[in-house]
């Protein structure tokens, strides 16, 4: 092998980078469940759970457009036909009042940092 020293360093760097998902997994923690705390006393979300897990950001986007562009502040659930007031703070966060153990817990684990809270207010669970 020519330039063996440089080539071996290169190969080691290559392998280190492209196998990193495997070895960094051992350095950090495992992630086997989302560990969110569901609201007590409620059974159903606005839509079915599958939909909420995957699509809640798009639902919020739609809500925002409905409320601010269409002046429509009522949302009818496709799940059970219930009518909901379109509001991030007063609907979502009324049931999911424990922000840090619900929304945030799941978001931080998946590296999602919504910028909504620069304007909207997170309920503080009566601390203040």
């Amino acid at each position, binding site marked *: *092998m020519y330039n063996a020293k440089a080539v071996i360093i290169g190969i080691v760097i290559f392998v280190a980078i*492209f196998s990193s*998902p495997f070895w*960094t*997994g051992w350095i950090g*923690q495992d992630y*086997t469940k989302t560990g969110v705390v569901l609201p007590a006393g409620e059974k159903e979300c606005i839509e079915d759970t599958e939909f909420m897990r995957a699509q809640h950001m798009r639902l919020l986007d739609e809500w925002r457009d409905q409320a601010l562009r269409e002046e429509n502040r009522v949302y009818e659930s496709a799940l059970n036909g219930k009518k909901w007031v379109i509001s991030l703070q007063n609907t979502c966060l009324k049931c999911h009042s424990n922000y840090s153990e619900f929304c945030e817990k799941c978001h931080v*684990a*998946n*590296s999602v940092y919504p910028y909504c809270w620069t304007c909207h207010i997170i309920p503080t669970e009566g601390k203040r």
Partner: protein
Amino acid sequence: MFASLVLVLLIAAIAWIGASVGLAPLFGVVLPYAAVLVFIGGMIWRMTYWAKSPVPFCIPTTGGQEQSLDFIKQAKIDCPSTTWGVVKRMFTEVFLFRSLFRNTSAEIVENDPVNKGPRLIYYSSLWLWAFALIFHYSVLVIFIRHFRFFMEPVPAPITWVETIDGIMQVGSPRFYWTGGLALVALLFLLARRVWNYRLRYISLANDYFPLWLLLGIVCSGLCLRYFDKTEISQVKIYLMGLTHFAPVSAAGINGLFFIHLTLVCVLLMYFPFSKLAHMPGVFFSPTRNMANNSRRIRHINPWNPPKQYFTYPEYEDAYRDAMAEAGLPLEKQPEKAAE
């Protein structure tokens, strides 16, 4: 071109059907492990294969004045004469695609006023350079962003990249520029091969296939993020299971995810054996990694057979008596040599 498209669609269809008839473990566990092994093993093989190949001549491509007399200005980056110069050149090549920047396009102008007739004109053509650069950097950012699926807790630098990538705060989930730019750049790179008839003539299946494959990956990825979403946290749990060698059930994950994953696996397995291996290949390219110093330092062809030398003292030893008889001048006279 169409054959490669059909091939990519076929792979996607197989993955989708496979995942929906309950072969998710095959496409979601066996294939990724196999792909990673083939990718890493294949690349090591490829690199050692290159490293073992002798370079018979000193053949750097030069694009400027070589090192000469002191008062002649050397093009230090385009015609490096030292290892440090080669490093600088390699850096600009890898990070800025410097040699692509000099791409020209030739065109015959029928009625040129200067020639009063047809004339061949060369233009600087930066399209390929621009889109290649956009594509590669987008893919780099996308690659880095995907590490949110492999790491817990997610390291801060990945978050910074995401913040910058989604800085426009369009839509929800936030639109990441690199995803869109990678798609646009790929479409350009494909269109270039299809509409430039000279390029089309020299394009082969192994040019189209990687493009379609990457398009398939980018499109399925964009779909998974913005349209037919799947539950991200579930996907992370699934992938963390893979990287911890404790695969978990894939139930509840959108079939589209398996199309995405399978296409990525195919890409990984295809990578070492295709032109995509230019990733490490650029460092092994003698036209890039050698200094243009052939006037100062002799480049010895490593595959030359070992030389059979016959030095003058040996020659004299062999023929001393005959030379003395013929009266030729000798370094050692026979009586002295006998001592």
